[in-house]
């Protein structure tokens, strides 16, 4: 039985890459198995693939709610714990409540959006991964599994679509 390997095909531009994706689809590689890595973001619509799903927005909203409650705790919880009278103002002031809750909500929203990126993308990822440095020079890489004996078939199909190279992917420390 031929073992499964992962191939990495490098394309220089969007059009050849899209042709390559079509060839791969014809050859039976499903959308889930195929990974597209690029130096600039290319929407799924352009590539003819379903777009990626992100959880960052949901995590950010959760962070906003957390921030809101944290702000509430600051502005109304702390005077409840230790009330002190100042300047004829109420101990539980309302306008300051808006200010504090706003700032903490925004901090929660953005802080959790940032962390959400880490969580959702698995950052930081320092284990060896399939990658070639040419990608940050603007190349588009198609990463897909195939069995060892079919390698030549895939390679020819992609090269005729315009691939610069089709090589087995090496997992390396980035």
């Amino acid at each position, binding site marked *: 039985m031929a073992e499964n390997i992962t191939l990495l095909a490098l394309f220089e531009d969007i059009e050849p890459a899209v042709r390559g994706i079509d060839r791969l689809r014809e050859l039976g590689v499903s959308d889930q198995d195929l990974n597209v890595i690029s130096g*600039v973001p290319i929407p799924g619509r352009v590539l003819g693939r379903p777009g990626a799903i992100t959880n960052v927005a949901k995590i950010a909203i959760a962070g906003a709610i957390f921030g809101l409650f944290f702000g509430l705790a600051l502005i109304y919880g702390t005077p409840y714990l230790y009330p002190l009278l100042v300047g004829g103002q109420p101990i539980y002031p309302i306008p300051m409540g808006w*200010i504090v809750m706003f700032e903490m909500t925004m901090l929660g929203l953005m802080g959790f959006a940032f962390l959400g990126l880490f969580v959702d993308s698995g950052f930081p990822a320092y284990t060896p991964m399939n990658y070639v440095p040419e990608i940050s020079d603007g190349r588009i890489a198609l990463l897909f599994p195939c069995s060892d004996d079919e390698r030549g078939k895939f390679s020819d199909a992609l090269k005729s679509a315009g691939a610069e190279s089709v090589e087995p992917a090496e997992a390396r420390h980035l």
Partner: protein
Amino acid sequence: MAATAKSLPQPRARVAEHEDPRVHLMHDPRPRGEMNDMVLESMHTATWRYWIATGTLTFLVLTCFVFAWYYLIANGLGVAGVNRPVYWGIFLVNTVFWIGISHAGTFISAILRVMKIEGRRPFTRAAELMTTFGLVQAGASIFMHMGRVWLAYWLFPFPNERGLWPDFHSPLMWDFLAINTYLLCSTMYLFLPLIPDLAMVRDRAKGWQKIPYRILALGFRGTEGEWKNLHTAMNIFAFAIIPVMFSVHTIVSWDFAMATRPGWSSTVFGPYFVIGALHSGMAAVAIVLFLIRSTMKNMKYFLRPEHFNLIGMLMLLVSMAWAYFYFNDYLVPWYGGDKWEKILQEFTEKGPIWWLWYVMLICNVAIPWLILWRKKWRSTPWLLAIVGVFINIGMWIERYVIIPEALTINRMPFTWRIYIPHVEIFLTIGTVSLFLLLYMLASRVIPLIPVWEVQEGQESHTLRRVGKAELSTLTNIE
């Protein structure tokens, strides 16, 4: 027959040159690898001029920032020029000034991104660096003005054995929350689009230099999921940091507006300060971009006259808005009503330092309005930078007029006294030097141009033939 009438002279045709669209960065694409090379070359090339500048700045930072601040902490605020009634002096002026400068970064990076103004692409990172470094100086200035700065952590709400919490009635606590929120969020916002560029540097770095980039790039590769997450996070930040930016300088203005002092207790302070922040910030961006373009290699490809034109237009617009708000703030005391505000206004215009007020108006209004209306002048980097310097001087003076000058006049004339700064002058030089030094060091360490965003923009722009012309067309690939 009558004599033939002399024929009318032919009207001289006014010929305009058609601009070659390839003058614009977005229509002058180069291969990504080449752009990466250019940016890395500018990062790694340091001439002797760079080292002289960095050495001078380091010396200034060590003397005028580190030593002067040590001297201040060791001897107390008596070595500064503050007294009764001017309890707040140049330290607060610097705080407001640096927070103002920091607003430009967010304006360019967030507002221009949200409004999809493509001209922002090459200089968002330079602007965001200004935000972070500016806020560092603002934070330092706030700490400098505190009498017992070693207890500054008491402003942080944390459970302690005395059960004490900070007082959220105080505008200084709103400041604490807002400025920290802004600092954290703008640093995160600086870091997000930096990740792909750090990955690029990581891919090309060799040896021990690769290690910090490997760590900071977080293992970013550029998969669809990673780009989608990054884009979503950047969009959330871009939209969310705009109201935070407005709120930060509004809250800073409330430090003054909540006080019962004549000249301070003004309801227009919120928007007035925000516009003032944008005014000095945009001017500082012009200066920084001019310095980057003229001193760093290959930057003339990325930073073109069109970008200076964009910044110049924004500077003119904000200058007009500032004049509008200043006139609002000026008219009310001029008209009469509060006797102390009128006395303060007369003191400002005719008192011992009357000339400061005139310099402020010339720098903030006259110079921009005389120069920035002409596109050719706006597109000249060095001219825009000079206008930027004047505007920053004018805006610094504006904060000086608002803080120490307004504090001189209060409702108890027996206490009126002029403010004469001492160690604050050195510390001001120190903060400016530190700001520039941080920038110089950052230019060696991170790429100042977000190359992936420039390439993204270049892919979105095409030239479409309509009739005989090649017209710029923007397709929003996003």
